[in-house]
């Protein structure tokens, strides 16, 4: 039984085009849909379908040509660059395909990064980081550099970094794309736990069918148009 609540992400009439030389290519075509809080959504589709673009727009790292994106009360499409940056710091956690950890920082310091944008004291930051690393099961590798960690471990650090500031939504772009089968399963299990145990909302772009299986809801994006496929 579902209790009706305000969707955490509301997207209305989203349009995005790209220029390539003199050509104008339409990537997203009048997209409208909602995402509920606590949902685990997979966005799938052939390459070039615009799923990553849609993800970027939801996460506030790109701006649409027209339309609106509302994430938890905030109309992010109307924010300036500076305001968007500030918003992202506390509202979005991003997980990348290639982890994108900073090589000269230890696991601990990588996870600490988003907290530097808050007003927390050193001690408070330490507590949060340790909690996050504990949640992803990497407390014993806090002082290791990314080069000393396996792919799966690096992605776990990345996830810890993504959740440490307690963001409103988590956004993942092909999180298992660079992992072997065992590590991929670990990561997906972790993400599932984040949703079930901590009530996080995850929007994931993937073309890995096993990843899609873990999600609650799958949407297909094809040539910039959204379909619905319930899983």
């Amino acid at each position, binding site marked *: 039984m579902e209790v009706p609540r305000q969707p955490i992400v509301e997207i209305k009439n989203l349009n995005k085009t790209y220029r390539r030389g003199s050509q104008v290519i339409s990537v997203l075509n009048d997209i409208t849909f909602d995402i509920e809080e606590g949902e685990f959504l997979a966005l799938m589709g052939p390459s070039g379908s615009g799923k990553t673009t849609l993800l970027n727009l939801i996460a506030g*790292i790109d701006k649409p040509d027209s339309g609106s994106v509302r994430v938890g009360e905030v109309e992010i499409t109307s924010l300036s660059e500076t305001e968007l*940056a500030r*918003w*992202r710091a506390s509202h979005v956690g*991003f997980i990348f395909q290639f982890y994108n950890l900073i090589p*000269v920082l230890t696991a601990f*310091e990588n996870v600490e*990064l*988003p907290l530097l944008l808050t007003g927390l004291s050193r001690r408070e930051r330490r507590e949060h980081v340790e909690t996050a690393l504990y949640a992803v099961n990497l407390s014993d590798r806090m002082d290791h550099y990314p080069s000393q960690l396996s792919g799966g471990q690096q992605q776990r650090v990345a996830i810890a970094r993504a959740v440490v500031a307690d963001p409103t939504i988590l956004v993942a772009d092909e999180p298992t794309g660079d992992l072997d089968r065992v590590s991929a399963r670990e990561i997906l299990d972790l993400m599932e736990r984040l949703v079930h145990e901590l009530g996080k909302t995850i929007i994931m772009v993937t073309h890995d069918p096993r990843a899609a299986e873990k999600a609650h809801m799958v949407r297909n994006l094809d040539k910039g148009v959204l379909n619905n496929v319930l899983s």
Partner: protein
Amino acid sequence: MFFLKLLFRNAFRHKLRTTLTVVGVAIAILAFGLLRTLVGLWYLGVERSSATRLVTRNAISLVFTLPISYKDRILQIRGVKSISYGNWFGGIYADEKHFFANYAVEPRSYLELYPEFVLPPDQKAAFLRDRKGCIVGAKLAELHKWKLGDIITLKGTIFPGQWEFVLRAIYKGADKSTEERALMFHWDYLNETMKKTVPRRADQVGFYMIGVTNKDLAPEVAVEIDRTFKNSLAETMTETERAFQLGFISMTEAILIAIQIVSYVVIVIIMVVAANTMAMTARERISEYATFKTIGFGKWHIGGIVFGESLVIAMTGGIIGALLTFPAARWFEVELSQYFPVFSVSPFTIYLDLLAAMGIGVVAAVFPTWRSATIRIVEGLRRIG
């Protein structure tokens, strides 16, 4: 601070590249400092000269002399406190490689006019008593290991013959800028010898040094002296000692300017090298900067990271270069003492060194900083490594 930690770690991430750049900057700053010191040397004479002493010489050029009879007439001019005189001797010791300044002066009045030459009273008295005596600067005496009582022989160029002098006194400079590498002897000795050998060259002085009662009167006194001797057989040209030295310098101005230009070219060259390093480094890290932006860091943060790294590298090289300047200057002073009697590095040069290093860091960072700070996140993420 976290920021500094990040800067330093980033800077030394690429050890080889950073080391090469730091070495390059260090060499450039070293060269810059040494060149500036070289230029400063030229002006050393100006620093030492005073605005209360006037130099009177033949208006045609230094090659011509003035009669000794002018002395009494100059003394009568209002504002003149004291007067001394002398001739540039230009004698050679041993061989031309060991060049040092030597001249004949009227000893008592000259030493009075130059209080910055400090001699022990007993040595001074010995010098004044002995007409064949000479005084020598402390650094010069040290260089040639001369002791009191030694006989120093100079081969005359302008005044031919072998001239022997007895070292009667060694003078030290009152402050650091006073040079201690000259030899001075009695004008009377020169004159008496000339009277015997080439009488027509006797009773002639190369220059008069005049002390004025009041510094502000100096220009008036100069004009008055020249007016006195206008239209006489030997017209005079009088100017402050400082103006006189500056006049000399302006004659070799072209070289000075060239050296100064070159010192800046050094900096420009290394700026180009450093800019190259930073451009490469920034380009390789675009995806990292995009990640920072994704997390929520703004373009000022990113700019700061790039800029800061450039400064760290440049300042490290700059400090090393500045520190190396001291032993290098020492080497110049010792090995090339013939050309550079004094090669001391002034604090101002060190400040300029560090400023130049900072300049290098800034200029090298400008373009990469701008590029990285304004990169669109989406584009930056696309570039992997």
